[in-house]
């Protein structure tokens, strides 16, 4: 059996993204609760940019950040659940799909917000112009209801982290902060992405969020 060693697991863009989201979700909830709608709107657009970045990074980023690495088929998930996990760095097959679910749920939430309007027609998302007042109002209600879905997924995520910490005695938070963790051994090393790809993904995500903020005008 190979010895456990300390290796790089998560690159800094992935980590920065993760902790930015951890801050943004409560802030978005709070600004909505307190009806600070200008800030809510701005933070929502920041979230949009971050999600766009993460999706791009999942395509061209470091190896552990890529969807092709951590999104595995049903057989791999089943094997993992049966305790016959292959030594893969980063997300295990189950964790990988939970990440995808959270990213998808966040994307849905932001997308709904873009088209929403309050009942007074005063506070609107940048894309509300594409839908009628009635539809925008409906979407606002869906946007509010969908937050509960996010809460469930986040709750499961936190529960899983605690499970690993307490039952499996494995710290998952440390690696997401420092980027380094202890690997059981045998897994391929993390391949970081060259800087130009980071610049490219950031620029594209920012441009996309900016374009949406301005009303997605052609």
């Amino acid at each position, binding site marked *: 059996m190979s010895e456990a060693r300390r290796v790089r697991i998560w690159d800094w863009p992935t980590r920065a993204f993760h902790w930015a989201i951890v801050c943004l979700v409560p802030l978005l909830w709070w600004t909505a609760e307190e009806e600070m709608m200008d800030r809510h709107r701005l933070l929502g657009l920041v979230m949009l940019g971050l999600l766009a970045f993460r999706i791009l990074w999942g395509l061209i980023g470091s190896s552990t950040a890529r969807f092709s690495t951590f999104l595995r088929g049903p057989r791999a998930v089943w094997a993992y659940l049966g305790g016959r996990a292959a030594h893969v760095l980063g997300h295990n097959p189950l964790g990988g799909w939970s990440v995808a679910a959270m990213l998808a749920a966040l994307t849905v939430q932001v997308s709904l917000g873009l088209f929403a309007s309050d009942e007074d*027609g*005063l506070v609107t998302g940048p894309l509300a112009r594409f839908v009628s007042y009635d539809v925008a109002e409906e979407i606002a209600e869906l946007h509010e209801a969908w937050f509960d879905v996010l809460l469930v997924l986040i709750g499961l995520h936190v529960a899983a982290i605690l499970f690993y910490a307490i039952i499996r005695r494995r710290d998952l938070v440390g690696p997401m902060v420092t980027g380094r963790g202890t690997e059981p051994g045998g897994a391929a090393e993390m391949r970081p992405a060259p800087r130009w790809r980071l610049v490219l993904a950031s620029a594209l995500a920012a441009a996309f969020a900016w374009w949406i903020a301005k009303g997605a005008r052609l």
Partner: protein
Amino acid sequence: MKRIAAAGAAALLIAVGACQEAETEPPERNPAEAEAEATGPAAMVRTRQTHYKAIGKSMKAIGEQLDAPRPSVQEIRMEAAQIAEAAPQVLTWFPPGSGAETGLETRAKQEIWGDPQGFRRAAERFIQVSETFHDVTMTGDLAAIRAAREELGGACKNCHDDFRAPEE
């Protein structure tokens, strides 16, 4: 044979009779009908909700014009006129007894009738601000229109904060 014929005839008569009965019986009431037939103060609930939605639509349309690359002052003016026309009617939309006691879904708070002077003040502010907004749209000055729209939003909020219940 005769008995079967008699039974058959009786069954037929009963069936016909039953159909007749069904035709003359009034149809079952559905909530929408009950609402539509609501008279007096209760009827106002639906009326005012329709009007308020129309105001909301106008506000949304105005906001979209102002966000557009080339805002149409004419469009804004039209919507502003509609709002200014609706504003004075507000005080007629809340007759006593048209609150939650109607059993209909309404966000009108009891304060409307508990603090009639406060409500009147808020309603009059809305009238005044919507008139001002309409006047400003006549100037065609976009910067002034934007500022006036902020004021108008403030007038909406002013009344809603005190007299409209939050959404469930």
